[in-house]
């Protein structure tokens, strides 16, 4: 049983990401130049992403992973996010006087883990991917060692995260007990009415629900997001979330067991998550924390599309493609917007992340017109206004929900997006319609650093591109053989 060369190429992106991570740590003593390290890490992120080009579609390592358009899409997504986050971290690390090599290496390791998550077709492989990305995340969250908040964030994330991982692992064990296999395809063929299988899948859902911050497993999110270094928060909000959603979608669409059951589970999760996120965000005065709650809300919107996917199986005549496409398109648009928004928050925050409250954003429209305009674009996208990626994302989720006759869910989502309007709008109002009280403190940023500005420009262009000309991306996410079935 030796893996073929094709198999090795199927994990080439992960190999490259890990390789560059290791190289970064080795190079650190010799390469004192921070910019050089940043560039090297970016090359690594890009090379891993581009390596997907060589992979052949199909199942690899005897069914452990599945390399298909679906995993390709997520590889691109997490690779792009890593690339942008590394670029955005450059000025942050300089400002906070933190070592960069380990930081970048950890980001690349986490990305490799996310890549594994996206293509895993076997639960233990998925577990390895999950752990790779989680453990790197725990360290990254506490990377600003001197700050109490950062340490708190790391400890909280670690403790609760391990707990969730235990749930996931226990779920795998039960599923194995029920089906005699950890391979998704083989699990799918076991008796769906088995209670053991159901229980196992429920535990898996809890574990993954934690990672995507679905209510009621979301309590860690605001604290961890707020405490972590802001570029890391950008990574958390985009990468691991998208990758975990990828795995979640793959598990629950491959294993058809007890569809009704999952339908209601996702329905309730979606509604709870939307409301918890939006209502929580309403009362925040710290922009970073507000965006953390908004991530929870957006996980809820994504879960609405999930619910639509689960109903597709009930009716084999309706193609599930649009509902899948909704999830994928939504995650792409959302991730880029979140990276852009957190980058701005990181830059405005200044040294020690001291300026992140709404008051610090007052008058930004006149002080930093570019940052304010970009932030407005991102917020409008999160709000789902037209000509932004967020609008089409919301539109496709709505459409998927209504396609599946989930009118009530769509209406609840409507109510939520209206609640969302209030707090997103408040930031815009503060930036443009209030004057900054008193003098601008000395430590506050006077403008975006060039690297951060690049990230913001890329994210903004992508937001508008996805909002105006979504055809190309839609072509990918709507492709017929999005998920290759190994059967």
């Amino acid at each position, binding site marked *: 049983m030796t893996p073929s060369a094709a198999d090795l190429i199927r994990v080439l992106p992960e190999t490259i990401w890990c390789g560059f991570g290791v190289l970064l740590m080795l190079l650190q003593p010799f390469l004192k130049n921070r910019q050089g390290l940043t560039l090297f890490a970016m090359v690594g992120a890009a090379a891993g992403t581009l390596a997907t080009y060589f992979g052949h579609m199909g199942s690899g390592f005897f069914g452990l992973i599945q390399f298909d358009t679906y995993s390709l899409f997520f590889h691109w997504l997490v690779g792009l996010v890593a690339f942008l986050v590394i670029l955005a971290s450059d000025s942050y690390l300089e400002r906070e006087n933190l070592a960069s090599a380990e930081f970048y290496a950890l980001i690349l390791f986490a990305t490799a883990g996310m890549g594994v998550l996206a293509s895993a077709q076997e639960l233990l492989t998925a577990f390895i991917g999950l752990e790779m990305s989680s453990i790197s995340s725990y360290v990254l969250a506490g990377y600003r060692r001197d700050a109490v908040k950062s340490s708190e964030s790391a400890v909280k994330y670690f403790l609760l995260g391990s707990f969730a991982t235990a749930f996931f692992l226990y779920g795998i064990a039960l599923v194995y007990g029920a089906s005699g296999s950890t391979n998704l395809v083989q699990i799918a063929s076991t008796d769906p009415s088995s209670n053991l299988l159901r229980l196992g899948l429920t535990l898996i859902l809890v574990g993954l629900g934690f990672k995507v911050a679905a209510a009621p497993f979301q309590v860690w999110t605001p604290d961890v997001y707020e405490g972590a270094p802001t570029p890391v928060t950008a990574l958390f909000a985009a990468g691991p979330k998208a990758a975990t959603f990828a795995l979640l979608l793959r598990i629950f669409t491959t294993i058809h067991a007890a569809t009704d059951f999952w339908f209601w589970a996702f329905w309730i999760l979606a509604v709870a998550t939307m409301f918890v996120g939006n209502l929580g965000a309403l009362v925040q005065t710290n922009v970073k924390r507000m965006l953390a709650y908004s991530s929870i809300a957006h996980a809820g919107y994504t879960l609405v599309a999930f619910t639509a996917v689960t109903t597709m199986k009930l009716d084999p005549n309706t193609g599930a493609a*649009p509902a899948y496409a909704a999830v994928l398109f939504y995650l792409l648009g959302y991730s880029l917007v979140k990276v852009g928004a957190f980058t701005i928050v990181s830059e405005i925050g200044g040294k020690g992340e001291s300026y992140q409250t709404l008051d610090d954003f007052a008058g930004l429209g*006149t002080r930093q017109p570019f940052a304010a305009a970009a932030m407005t674009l991102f917020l*409008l996208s999160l709000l789902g*206004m*037209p*000509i932004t990626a967020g*609008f089409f994302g919301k*539109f496709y989720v*709505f*459409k998927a929900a*209504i*396609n599946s006759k989930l*009118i009530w869910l*769509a*209406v609840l989502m*409507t*109510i939520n*997006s*209206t609640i969302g*309007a*209030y707090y997103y*709008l*408040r930031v815009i*109002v503060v930036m*443009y*319609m*209030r004057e900054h009280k008193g003098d601008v403190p000395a430590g506050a940023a006077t403008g975006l650093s060039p690297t951060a500005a690049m990230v913001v420009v890329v994210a903004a262009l992508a937001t508008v591109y996805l909002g105006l000309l*979504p*055809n190309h991306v*839609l*072509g990918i996410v*709507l492709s017929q053989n999005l998920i290759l079935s190994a059967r």
Partner: protein
Amino acid sequence: MELSGHLLSILIFFPAIGALALLCLKSEDEYWIRRLTFVVSVAEFLLSLILLRVVAIGAQGYALTEYKSWISSPPINYHLGVDGISMFLVILTTFLTPICVLASWKGVHHRIKEFHVMLLLLEVGIIGVFLALDLFVFFLFWEVMLIPMAFLIGIWGHGRRIYAAVKFFIYTMAGSAFMLVGILWLYNLTGTFDLPAIQLTLQSAAFHLAPRTEMLLFLSFFIAFAIKVPLFPLHTWLPDAHVEAPTAGSIILAGVLLKMGTYGMIRFCLPLFPEASHRAAPYVAVLAIIGIIYGALVALVQPNLKKLVAYSSVSHLGFVVLGIFTFHTISMQGAVYQMLAHGISTGALFFLVGMLYDRRHTFEISEYGGLVKPMPQYAAFFLFVALSSMGLPMLNGFVGEYLILLGTYQVHWGWASWAATGVILSACYLLWAYQRVFFGDVTHDENRGLSDIDAREKWGLVVFAVITLWMGLGSPYFTRRVAAPVDWVIEQTKSKYAEEAVKPAAPSQPAALATTIQQDSPTRTVSR
């Protein structure tokens, strides 16, 4: 004639190009910013006048259609078209925009460049709403328009501007979110976002919409439009938005934005959901009448001049909604006419009130009195506009209200008689306010030295006055062009249900639906 094929797109995006050009100017370059915006908006107005020549009188259906596929899945097409109704609304928009530039010549002092960019972007959104024939494209413009308007109120408004801007945004957003659900549901049923195609599908004999579904769909659209109109009891955003908005914002808000709601009812609610419209009509009419009377009564007791004008809009728009939901040719023509007339006379009123604010920085009626002495010309224009707003014969306000009442009377005399009280009340609140502001002694010393209108203001007002008079005397010019599309809309609300009424015992028809038809038939089978 290559360009004429794209006239509508040019109309939509020309102001956007103007806005881009503005962005290239320096923000200190106040002189050129104002002039460039004015030139762009006047050019846009002249461009829109071409529509008057191109859109044939008496022709049904859409002219100058543009069709281009945009998004492949789901099929969304960039589909535009114009008919007699939307033509006039577009011209109203392009007419009021240069007026707004004039009105803010002195009232806007900070962030002048951004102000004019927002104004032009607002124009893009509004014209797009009136010309879109694809539900998705319509929705897009509908939402896009919100942002510049909220900014106009929030940045350049008065005291409680932020509260007003957020309230305006959230009210409209709540409505439009439901509309999005409705649009998608409709797409799910018909497989297209294209308005004419949806209409064909809904009307085809093979297609049956359950009454409950139709009602929910109707409501999802109607609520969004009713918020915009605003129909009582959804009107509470309007006084705040109006009072806090800068003059230009109020002019556009009252002049055009409110009409987007009534336009939506004519264009979407009635033709797409005739059954539900008929079932909802009595309730809508009652709400409209409450709005007419309530708006007028509240206007009567307003100590704030601008709020008074704002509440008068609630009252006048109530007439429009009443005219639409009587399904009568005359009253619907009247409704369309009233939309235009109200745009002109309320636009002029806000323009006038704004001038007073530029001079004294207050809207309180008690702060004024005896203004006819220092400002005789201003007082004359104000009287003229107030008379047109209250519906004096020969001026524009009269024609619309008269036609609406005439048509309504033939359908339901009770509605007409209640609504008619609104006409009397409007005379009360406007004349009383006029008396308090202009007659008597000059009660405040600072009012003695007020300057009368200058040349810029005078020319703006002369244009308003000429149009008011022309609309009053030459109303057939408008009604002739509006008649065919209005007839068509009424035809749409009848056709399918007339068919069903003929064969009420059709087996596929649910019994409940058949009974509703029979119960409701008196109001429906009104001849034109």
